[in-house]
């Protein structure tokens, strides 16, 4: 058994009080939720930035920003489902 596996085993032995993987799941969900907020800010910023100079072809950036937000939401939901 590797030291890392021993470390996890020690946590699981005291599973009634504290479950290591529940803790990790919470961290994952918080991380992905923050990422969704970041992706939403990116969309807003792309819109604000593109208003400064009109005429720039920003549709690829808007497209990627929305895809980015969509993937972030999907991964957040996935983390709530499969973890």
């Amino acid at each position, binding site marked *: 058994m590797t030291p890392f*596996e021993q470390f996890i085993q020690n946590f699981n032995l005291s599973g009634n009080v504290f479950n290591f993987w529940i803790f990790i799941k919470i961290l994952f969900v918080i991380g992905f939720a923050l990422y969704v907020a970041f992706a939403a800010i990116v969309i807003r910023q792309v819109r604000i*930035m593109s208003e400064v*100079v009109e005429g720039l072809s920003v549709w690829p950036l808007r497209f990627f920003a929305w895809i980015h937000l969509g993937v972030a939401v999907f991964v957040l939901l996935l983390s709530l489902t499969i973890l």
Partner: protein
Amino acid sequence: MPDIFVRPNKKEKNFEVDLDNVHLTHFFKKPFSFLTAFAVQPRNLHYEDQEKEEKMVLFLRRHFFTNMGWIVIAFCLALVPIFAFSFFSFKSIPLSYRFLGIVGWYMIVFAYAFERFLSWFFNINIVTDQRIIDINFPSILYKDISECRLENIEDVSSKIGGFARSFLNYGDVLIQTAGALPEINFESIPFPDKAAEIINDLIPPGRKE
């Protein structure tokens, strides 16, 4: 006595967009594209506070080569999971956690690369026939716009230094002003000498020595 040679008096020149004295090769007159970093009199571009009679003369961004640093970093970061799974065994971690860990890693790498690209794309320098504008987005949450009217420009100089800059012909244009901002710096723009030449040509005659 007839005059053999009369020196042209530049001070009599009207203050208007006059690029005839600037030698622009075919390269400078290429149509504006998504990644353009140097455009002379770009069509269909409009600055948010641009006045009706104001004409955009120069559109500048940092040279695309300045993106190479973050492109290399993003590429190396993208390879990290491949090497990590080659050298270490993560079998003690449940498959779902491993999968979402990798997905999360690549999302962070994408966010880093996208944010850096946006920073490059929207850090723009504009020269009109009335003023110069420096638009900076130091990070995704900050916007910094500084501008200076042409009559307040005191000196324009260009600087190229270093191997990559000399090889690819990009550098800084330093504009010293008499306004609130002591100087405006156009960083790492392509053809800084041409940009400086054009800006000098636009300065009202009364300001030129």
